[in-house]
């Protein structure tokens, strides 16, 4: 059954997918950074999803309550909801989005550039989550 995006249930389902992906475990074996997804709605509100990614596994994943909007992570990836949806639907390639500012990166860009296969496999797994996209 499709899971609404973005939501706590969705990021937990994504975590489960990641932790069962041999391809991700292999390509991300050197990754040691947590990521905060900062999703902007047209009305100005936001939603935050957090994932702790470590050596090919996702150790923690949850929706961050609004009072935790200042939560720190190695990377904060910010974009309008529509751009996140495009990435999940395969209409916008993640590295292109990052390099053109459609997905703003706060964090060490060097790490991203050195781990392109990891980033792309991460997105590929996310696209496997059966998702109910916002209308």
């Amino acid at each position, binding site marked *: 059954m499709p899971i609404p995006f973005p939501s706590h249930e969705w990021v937990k389902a994504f975590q489960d997918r990641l932790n069962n992906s041999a391809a991700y475990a292999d390509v991300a074996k050197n990754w040691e950074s947590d990521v905060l997804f900062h999703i902007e709605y047209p009305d100005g509100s936001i939603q935050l999803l957090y994932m702790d990614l470590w050596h090919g596994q996702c150790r923690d994943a949850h929706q961050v309550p609004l009072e935790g909007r200042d939560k720190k992570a190695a990377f904060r990836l910010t974009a309008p909801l529509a751009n996140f949806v495009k990435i999940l639907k395969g209409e916008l*390639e993640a*590295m*292109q989005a*990052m*390099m*053109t*500012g*459609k997905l*703003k*990166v706060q964090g*060490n*860009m*060097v*790490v991203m*550039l*050195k781990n*392109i*296969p990891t980033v792309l496999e991460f997105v590929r797994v996310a696209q496997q989550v059966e998702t109910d996209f916002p209308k």
Partner: protein
Amino acid sequence: MNGYHGQLLVVHLTTGQITTRALDPALLLDYLGGSALSAALLYPSLTRDLDPLGPDNPLLILGGPLTGLSGPAEGRFTVCAKSPATGLWGEANCGGFFGPELRFAGYDGLLVTGRASSPVYLWIRDDHAELRPADHLWGQADTYQTQEKLRAEVGEKLARVLCIGLAGERLIPFSLLLCDHGRVAGRTGMGAVMGSKNLKGIAVRGAQKIPLAREAEFSRLRSAANLALRNETVTTALRETGSAGGAEYFDFMGEMPKRYFTSGVFEGAGKVSGAVMNETILTGVSTCHACVVACGRVVTLPGERPGKGPEYETMVGFGPQLLVDDLAAITRLGRLCDAYGLDSISMSGVVGLAYLLYAEGRLSASEAGGPLNWGDPTGAERLIHLTVRRGGLGEILAQGARALGRHFGAEELAVQVNGLEVPYHDPRAASGMSLVYATSPRGACHNQSDYFLLDILRDAREETGITLHDRFDGPEKAASVARHQDWRTVHNALVHCFFAAAPPQMILDLVNTATGFDYSLTGLFRAGERAWNLKRAINHRLGLTRANDQLPKLLLQPYADGGAAGFAPDLPAMLSAYYAARGWDEATGQPTRETLQRLGLAAVADDLWT
């Protein structure tokens, strides 16, 4: 005249006479500056029988209306003449501080004609300009030492110096001009043109104000534009990782060539990138005049003083193209090119071809002074020294990749277009570059259009009207490529750095408030199109035909592996669509009379078609 001083400094080296020449306001309005205005000013002088290394080849150094005004990445200038590398339109583009300083001295540009009877340098201090002997510098110093010596001689620590190295003195057709911390006017052999005139260098210092049409408004816009540029993602990436920051992604997409354009993969590619540089040898960054991007790399190798680090082209040319994964060795090869005054794109292209010829058994170790094994940078260093000495094989190397291939009966292996070695953005991964390379007015060049970024990143500002296409598309993207070339020709007129991703409306507003012109975005594009067609017309006068619009054989053979395996551009079909989009004659490749007239180039049409 706002945005300009309205004059060139004119130096007649044969007579030693130094004068000024007023610039025609109508030409400034139509061409703005940089290489576009250069084309208009040099058009009458550039003929087929003009010797590029003869005294009659005029060398023109020009900024643009925004040069030196501290706007977003506006510190650049251009150097133009007939090219000794191609025999066609020659154009090189340079950053640093020299261009702004020339404007501060009260000149929009510098025109050098004739030939001095012995080596000289030019010292410009505002309205005082003089030629001084340079025999003591000729054959002595590398380009960095030359700068230091000239600054000491003129007694101005803050003088900006543009100079040639041994390569320019020895008329190597891919020699460059260098200023500041390794900023270069690299392509098409402008260093050799300067060397042929016995002009070793130019030192300049000035304190003149550049008049502006609406100064307060310009100042406000400039601050906003710099702030906007500072906040761009691409600016952050360039500041953190330099121009080589895209290396990993270009490699992933198969856009970075390896093993002299014959392999789509190289295991060591991940060891040579802007990101790796950042984590290993980077100790600082450098900028051009008032630039918020700061893409320049300062690196420190063990036991050495800090110095220039490689940008993308140098890194790929002496790295993956030779299967070298040693960033320190690549850095040293780039610095050697700078010291000699060699264009590192062309030099690494020549070296890469030599390695391929050696691998194929066409070039022997004895001819090359030793082995040229893939992965070993020592052979490259040896070939660079040989090239500048111009002895033995060096004499062939010094004539460029086309001549080297021809000498060994393998001209088809030389990856060049019209005598200019191809930069390291592969059209087999970004098909737009096939048109860019084939039709560039100065031979294979990524600085007439960096369309690879559109192909790879799939991003264009909507207001430019530049449409996006799949990176492997064919004729359907021809009109988009042409429009992008026009836009980048505007950049090369202003002279505005491609790395500054400022919104077009901001650029337009800066131009209009600085000059008082009333350009629209459409008008700017028209100015770009006009200059592009004028350069094309110049090249036809210099002997270019439709057959010159080609790509080398290796770029038409698909890679067997890597991120772009299996694809080769359909150049003939793309060219036909391109000619149609441009309004060029399919049979001759010339701009039609109607096209030239539409762009206000009726006199050029008469020259071309009668």
